[in-house]
């Protein structure tokens, strides 16, 4: 706890520093960045990281920055695509290895990523998610090319098992010369600082956000005469589905008017199906399967209580969405969850069946007695807590700070690697960094920058993308037409 307080103190002081210097603030708005977001995870894949990247990019475009996204090809979706407001997405044909993450060889992605960085005149490379090999590759290449780098960590890790030890080592190497790191909660910051042995001063905390207009309460959808508990999560071990399997029979036995509504898909679905079979609860436990993002609100508003049983969570978007729809939230006290909502909007329990049942019992009793605040009042409180504009504003400050910093030249980078990551791993990765640099020189000789066409900007300062509702003209054509007229 002491550590967390210190972390927040550091963050406060840094934010005061920014707001306390009027001259700096006055200069900031004129500064626009060309940002490239890199992650393996982007639409059509669904999840928290994907929507974070999309929403953040949209708000940054609104602020006048130029944003492009680089991800790997999903099936037949390769090449260049444009999304709303001229957000450009490069689906690069890189081989997917495991869990939608690309293979990391440190080299094979350099030609394409270099092409993206050069032709889009990128100044800041922002990588997302420590599970994404492409993000780490991009950080590595960006540093070789002398670009400023920012990394956002979306997840928590352990320290004990072999896979965490390896990923932590990789993270140490990857982050030791990254300019700035963003975490989604103070717990996540603590975790990242420890895992990657970082200087806490270059780690900022910027939480996720939720679009309140997508999650509005609608109590008329609730069914009278029963209490519905909604669970929306992927049905995997990390989300504590085994706990849920223990809670369901116990509570259903005590409360005959209790119903469960479970949305999501995953390998642990079998656990819930077994429970349903064993206790004959087919009419009271409904498994909805995988939900599309647009359908989530329709499920949430049917419930009275939102239950989250995660065993580890950096920042829980689901409970925020639940609260935003006006539900009573019951959650496990793990990771960054206690930071997300004010204490009176959430009931925290230990991650055990007994504690969760006790927590749910109190909320059910409160619900029956009618002493809970109305959904509309909960929504009104939550909607201003986390907004994407606020996230974008804070991220912008990170970019402003980063763009003023220098990127380590090769010799100092090598020294940093060897000093920071241990003699063995440090030397290996210093060698890889040298090879990467030589490969870059080779590429610059084979395909010089001057032979590369600069991309026509759809966003940013020289934006050519105009807001034209009902327009069927393709963006490129429009861009070219602009050039004709000029």
């Amino acid at each position: 706890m002491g550590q967390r307080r210190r972390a927040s103190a550091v963050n406060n002081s840094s934010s005061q520093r920014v707001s306390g210097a009027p001259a700096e603030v006055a200069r900031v708005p004129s500064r626009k960045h060309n940002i490239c977001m890199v992650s393996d995870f982007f639409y059509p894949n669904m999840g928290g990281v994907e929507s974070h990247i999309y929403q953040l990019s949209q708000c940054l475009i609104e602020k006048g920055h130029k944003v492009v996204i680089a991800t790997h090809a999903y099936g037949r979706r390769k090449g260049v695509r444009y999304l709303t407001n001229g957000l450009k997405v490069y689906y690069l044909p890189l081989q997917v290895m495991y869990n939608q993450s690309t293979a990391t060889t440190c080299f094979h992605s350099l030609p394409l990523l270099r092409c993206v960085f050069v032709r889009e005149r990128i100044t800041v490379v922002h990588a997302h998610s420590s599970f994404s090999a492409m993000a780490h590759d991009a950080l590595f290449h960006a540093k070789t090319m002398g670009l400023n780098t920012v990394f956002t960590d979306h997840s928590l890790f352990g320290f004990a098992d072999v896979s965490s030890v390896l990923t932590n080592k990789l993270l140490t190497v990857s982050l030791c010369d990254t300019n700035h790191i963003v975490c989604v909660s103070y717990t996540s910051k603590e975790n990242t600082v420890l895992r990657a042995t970082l200087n806490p001063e270059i780690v900022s905390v910027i939480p996720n956000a939720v679009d309140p207009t997508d999650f509005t309460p609608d109590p008329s959808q609730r069914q009278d005469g029963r209490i519905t508990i909604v669970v929306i999560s992927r049905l995997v071990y990390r989300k504590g589905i085994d706990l849920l399997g223990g809670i369901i029979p116990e509570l259903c036995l005590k409360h005959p008017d209790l119903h469960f509504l479970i949305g999501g898909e995953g390998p642990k679905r079998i656990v819930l199906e077994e429970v349903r079979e064993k206790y004959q609860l087919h009419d009271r436990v409904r498994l909805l399967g995988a939900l599309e993002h647009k359908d989530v609100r329709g499920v949430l508003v049917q419930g009275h209580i939102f239950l989250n049983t995660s065993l580890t969570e950096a920042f829980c978007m689901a409970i925020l969405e639940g609260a935003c729809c006006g539900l009573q939230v019951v959650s496990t006290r793990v990771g960054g969850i206690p930071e997300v909502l004010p204490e009176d909007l959430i009931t925290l329990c230990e991650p055990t069946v007994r504690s969760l049942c006790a927590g749910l019992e109190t909320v059910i009793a409160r619900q029956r007695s009618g002493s809970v605040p109305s959904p509309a009042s909960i929504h009104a409180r939550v909607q201003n807590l986390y907004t994407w504009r606020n996230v974008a504003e804070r991220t912008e400050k990170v970019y402003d700070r980063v763009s003023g910093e220098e990127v380590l030249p090769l010799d100092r980078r090598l020294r940093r690697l060897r000093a920071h990551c241990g003699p063995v791993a440090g030397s290996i990765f210093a060698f890889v960094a040298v090879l990467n640099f030589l490969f870059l020189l080779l590429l610059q000789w084979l395909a010089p920058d001057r032979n590369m066409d600069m991309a026509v900007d759809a966003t940013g300062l020289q934006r050519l993308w105009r807001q034209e509702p009902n327009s069927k003209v393709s963006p490129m054509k429009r861009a070219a037409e602009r050039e004709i007229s000029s």
Partner: protein
Amino acid sequence: MMEDEAFTDINGKSISLDCQNHSGFCREFTVSSSKVSIGKVMVYTSGVWLLAYTVFFFTENTAVLTCAILVTLVGMMLHIHFVKVDHESLLVIGSLGIQVSSSYASGRETTTFIEQSKIKDIVINEAIYMHQIIYYLCVLLKDPSEPDVVSSVVPLFQSSKPRLNCLVKVYKSCQEILSKC
């Protein structure tokens, strides 16, 4: 009226664009690539022959040398007949259609004609090609029965691959003609 301008392709080699105005609604664009350089031919020939001589030195079989000569000759013939494109041309005739032709170094010519009713538009697009991302000019085709759907795409100047400034020039004059009808 004829104009001849020098541009470069995506690899930095020089190409020339030749615009010919036949009439107000008929225009021809020809992109000529650089000729086969004698140095390149020498390098490939001597490469094959050196390899053949090394093999000959160890096997002492004269068939190897005969093969090398045949390989060089046939390879060169195939190259100029099927691979090396001397120039590509795009003939735009308003209200009639577009003719795309490419002539190979051997003199062989392939020509395709796309009629106006099938043409939806001509656009510049971006694509990932080998290990780079390039701009290219393409004709969007439609099915006359479904005018709003792009049924397929025909890339233009596929072998010369001019850079964006050249493409924009061609694009603008194409649009001038297409917009008239």
